[in-house]
């Protein structure tokens, strides 16, 4: 099995603080890989570097075999990297379908003129892509909500829309930013099921940044642990759970919901 996503020697500094210090790990193809660590460990920073939002001061990022260090988010999206957002980042006044259709933007063509005159070729293409978007939404379970403005949805449904949207970019590697944030045990279990189902159905590789230990221990194949911007442990859930460094770093922060 090859690697889908590799971080190698990533370092970044904000002012006087070294947020990431020589961070490296690999997400195997088809695996669910979790990135965990106590608050302030640098998980979000690492996530942002991998998704192109920040530019690291040093280090490399490799995606599906090619070097993508320093590429911007929309370029990464074009190379098969999808991501979800912790704060959902949806357009509240637009419908669910409209939000998901945004993900098809880079796979469709047609600018103002074509859209303005309702060029038949463009309308046909839109219909095709709309069908695919509906398919993805049905798989995620939000098909009944397609025409509802996103602003009126519950947080849990909004999360699903966000994931559907990420999937609609047809990624091969999916980055999930705290998918269980703000959810109780029941909802977390549902999200866990969804991630596993998505991986099984689409053959994706998944990297998730997460606080919720139940989710992580439940579905991750491998875990990388950060603390103070450094990797302090890596392994299977069983290995990481026993690792003394990890226990020391967390000391009582395991959520027991």
């Amino acid at each position: 099995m090859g690697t889908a996503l590799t971080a190698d020697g990533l370092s970044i500094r904000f002012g006087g603080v070294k947020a990431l210090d020589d961070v490296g790990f690999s997400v195997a193809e088809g695996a669910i890989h979790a990135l965990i660590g106590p608050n302030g460990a640098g998980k979000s920073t690492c996530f942002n570097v991998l998704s192109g939002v920040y530019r690291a001061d040093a280090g490399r990022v490799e995606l599906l075999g090619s070097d993508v260090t320093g590429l911007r988010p929309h370029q990464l999206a074009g190379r098969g990297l999808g991501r979800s957002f912790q704060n959902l980042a949806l357009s509240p006044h637009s419908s669910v379908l409209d939000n998901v259709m945004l993900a098809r933007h880079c796979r469709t063509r047609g600018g103002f003129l074509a859209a303005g005159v309702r060029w038949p070729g463009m309308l046909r293409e839109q219909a095709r892509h709309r069908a695919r978007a509906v398919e993805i939404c049905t798989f995620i379970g939000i098909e009944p909500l397609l025409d509802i403005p996103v602003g009126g949805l519950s947080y849990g449904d909004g999360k699903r829309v966000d994931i559907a949207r990420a999937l609609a970019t047809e990624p091969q590697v999916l980055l999930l930013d705290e998918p269980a944030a703000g959810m109780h045990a029941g909802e977390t279990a549902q999200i866990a099921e969804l991630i596993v189902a998505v991986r099984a159905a689409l053959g994706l590789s998944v990297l998730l940044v997460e606080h919720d230990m139940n989710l992580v221990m439940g579905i991750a194949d491998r875990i990388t642990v950060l603390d103070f911007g450094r990797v302090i442990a890596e392994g299977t859930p069983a290995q990481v759970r026993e690792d003394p460094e990890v226990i020391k770093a967390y000391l009582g922060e395991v959520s027991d919901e």
Partner: protein
Amino acid sequence: MSTFIQVAVNGLGKGAVYALLALGFVIIFKASGVLNFAHGSLVLLGGYVAVRTENHLHFLGSAILGVTAAAVGALVIERVLVARRPLADPISLALLTIGVDVVMSEEIIRRLGIEIPFLGKPYDGKPVHIGSITLFRTQLIALGVGAVLVGAFFLAFRFTGWGVAMRAQAENREAAALMGIRSGRVTAIAWVIAGVLAGVAVLFLATQDFSGAGLSRSTHAVALVAFPAAIIGGLDSTGGAIVGGAIVGLTESMSAQYISYDFSKIAVFIVMLAVLIVAPAGLFGTRERTRV
């Protein structure tokens, strides 16, 4: 050389007035997150009250009344309007102030009719001669008054309860509220201070020395020049407002003298565009780190 000194001092004097206006913008921006397009109306309001009371009180009395009127106007705008929509996005709030500005300025300009009264009678058009150099008295006094007011403001900003509260609120609104800072009051005081600064500024703006035009629509437009001053310095930097004001004042006089009067108007905006391209949040404003 003497021309240069004249132009420079003139520019700094104008800069002092722009700095007062820009400082007002920045204070409002820090307190409410709003780009106050109604600032020009506050300027007009202060000037109008000063003009109308001039015959009954002497200069100082009418000036004080004008400044008070501008302060009250600012307070009313904040309390009645801006405070009602604290969660609105910055663009909507800016548009709100545009609406207020349209109504206020049209009404004041209408009441002036064809009058274009000058303010600042004690010092307007009375040049000061130092050797071979002739300086505008208005600009000199503006420099002095500006320095005093700015100094007082910074002292207040650093050392008074209000100043500390403002800085805390500007940094993290929620945390400040949780710490017991009464956001409504802090914000109201901020607007009042901005109104005071605007009311003082008009006493120099509507003079022969400064703009060649009395209180009129063009005073409202001249107040607009304070926008680039605030932007150049950085909308959330009080120190930046002073620097921005100075830059704008100097740019205006230098370009008027050495290039052309027509060019001086756009010179300021060209400088602003240049600064923005190099420093998108102004010279001293806080930058975002994320890329898209």
